[in-house]
């Protein structure tokens, strides 16, 4: 590591463009939004930055608190489901034969590289009323119905397609679909580093697989589990596309409300305040995670 003072010219030529770019096109835009969050609308496009906290006050109204609460609940449930689905997958990849491991990782990663919008659209096509899921269920229903007729019972009522889209169920399903790789990769990274002899010792000493998982593997992999939870929760909390395309009128999440303030309601100061509240929530989570990692490093 060189000290910048001894190589001022080299340092300047390397540092100036990325730092300037970051300031001009990232810090400044965020700062403008931050300032707007303390402003109020005067006229159609004019915003007066008056230092008011009324936008934040409005965000605390029950309507918006409810949406915030709902976004947190939806993101938390999504994270939990991802953890339940993803943990066995990560475990399987960890203990798979080495030649299979990269291919299994690739199988999990490939959808993640596919466009988010297209994945959401693909899910919509199979879940809609005329989609495959409903069609297969209807087919089973009719099969069961004719089976009942065959044994001399009254047939089932006609099949009503399930409302699989445009509700909260669809939003959570869509979020799980999109965020599963976010969970599997950190879990795999943590499990891969685990000392296997500890698991073997536990099994040798008579603990079952489940007990070994809960009492040996889970505590040892806790940092990986926590980082997986945060990596999944943060984007799920700020999700815009999934609730927008798959949700119903009552499945609005915080990002949809923000979008509406900027694109339709044209209340930029309020949208700015909401977007900074979402950002603060994200930062707090990430800061907690970073602090945890640092203290863990110091301990070891």
């Amino acid at each position: 590591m060189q000290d910048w003072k001894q190589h001022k010219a080299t340092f300047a030529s390397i540092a100036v463009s990325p730092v300037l770019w970051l300031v001009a096109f990232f810090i400044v835009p965020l700062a403008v939004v931050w300032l707007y969050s303390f402003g109020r609308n005067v006229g159609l496009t004019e915003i007066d930055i008056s230092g008011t906290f009324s936008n934040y006050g409005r965000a605390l109204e029950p309507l918006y608190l409810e949406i915030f609460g709902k976004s947190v609940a939806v993101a938390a449930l999504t994270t939990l489901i991802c953890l339940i689905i993803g943990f066995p997958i990560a475990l399987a990849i960890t203990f798979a034969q080495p030649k299979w491991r990269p291919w299994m990782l690739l199988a999990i990663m490939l959808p993640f590289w596919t466009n988010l919008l297209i994945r959401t659209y693909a899910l919509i096509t199979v879940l809609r009323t005329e989609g495959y899921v409903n069609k297969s269920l209807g087919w089973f229903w009719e099969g069961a119905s004719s089976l009942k007729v065959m044994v001399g019972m009254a047939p089932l009522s006609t099949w009503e397609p399930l409302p699989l889209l445009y509700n909260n169920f669809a939003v959570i399903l869509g979020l799980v679909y999109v965020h599963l790789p976010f969970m599997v990769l950190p879990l795999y990274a943590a499990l891969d580093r685990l000392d296997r002899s500890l698991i073997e010792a536990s099994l040798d000493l008579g603990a079952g697989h489940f007990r070994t998982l809960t009492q040996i593997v889970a505590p040892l992999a806790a940092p990986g589990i926590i980082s997986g939870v945060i990596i999944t929760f943060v984007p799920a909390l700020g999700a815009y596309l999934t609730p927008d395309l798959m949700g119903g009128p009552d499945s609005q999440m915080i990002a949809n409300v923000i979008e509406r303030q900027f694109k339709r309601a044209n209340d930029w100061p309020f949208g700015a305040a909401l977007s900074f509240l979402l950002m603060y929530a994200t930062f707090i989570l990430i800061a907690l995670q970073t602090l945890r990692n640092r203290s863990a490093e110091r301990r070891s």
Partner: protein
Amino acid sequence: MNLFKRAEIAPLEYTRRLWMRAWIAATLFFLYAPLLVLIAFSFNDSKRNIVWRGFTFKYYGKVLENDGLMAALGNSLTIAFLATVFSIILGTLAAVMLWRFRFPGKTAVEGTMALPIVVPEICMGVAMLVFFAKLDWPTDLPWPLNLSAITIAHITFCFPFVAMVVRARLAGFNKEQEEAAKDLGATEWQAFRDVLLPHMKPGIIAGALLAFTLSLDDFVITFFTSGPNTITFPVKVYSMVRFSVTPEVNAASAILIFLTILLTTVALKLQDFTKATA
């Protein structure tokens, strides 16, 4: 006593257990079935899109004839290319700066550099919208200059990823090589070009492919920076999806999926994938 335990499976070979295989199969089915259905029915000769009525390429033809969609694809590829080039330069410089120098405020710079990766997309999108509106950024420039706002936004969220990947690669660099070059009379620039740059190359390529995919895929941030004349492919598909589910959207999506698979394959080939992860 363990009548039901198959002796040939070692305790830790979870992957060989039936329930685990069923779990993996179910998850992969969940992940892939919708995408496979989407691709399969882009070849289906039926408007209603659910019953198979024979193979056809006609929806691909329709996509190719759809000027709006093709223009959007052209815009997306142009933006992705420009964003990649700039991200490589900025990202590599940032990585070298953070790896090589000790300077006041380094932790702050490092933290800020990671922010575009973690900030919710929607917040970054509105920040870009507000910023370009505040600047009165001209929207009626000739192509490709009219894409500048979107390109700038894309560079901002792509280059920190490149910096991250390149910096990870630099961690394995033996500094004595660079010192040896300088001892033998190389200038600062020559040492950079002939010693450091070749070492960083795999990282830069990986970062470039990452930046290209991120830019090509981005919807939310683009949605806030694009105007009526600067529609990108995802934004166009979004407006089609909102409208209805049609085989044409399937075909357009399938094209993008194939493009992604192609890029991923190239990336993995270049990185000698099985060796790198095994």
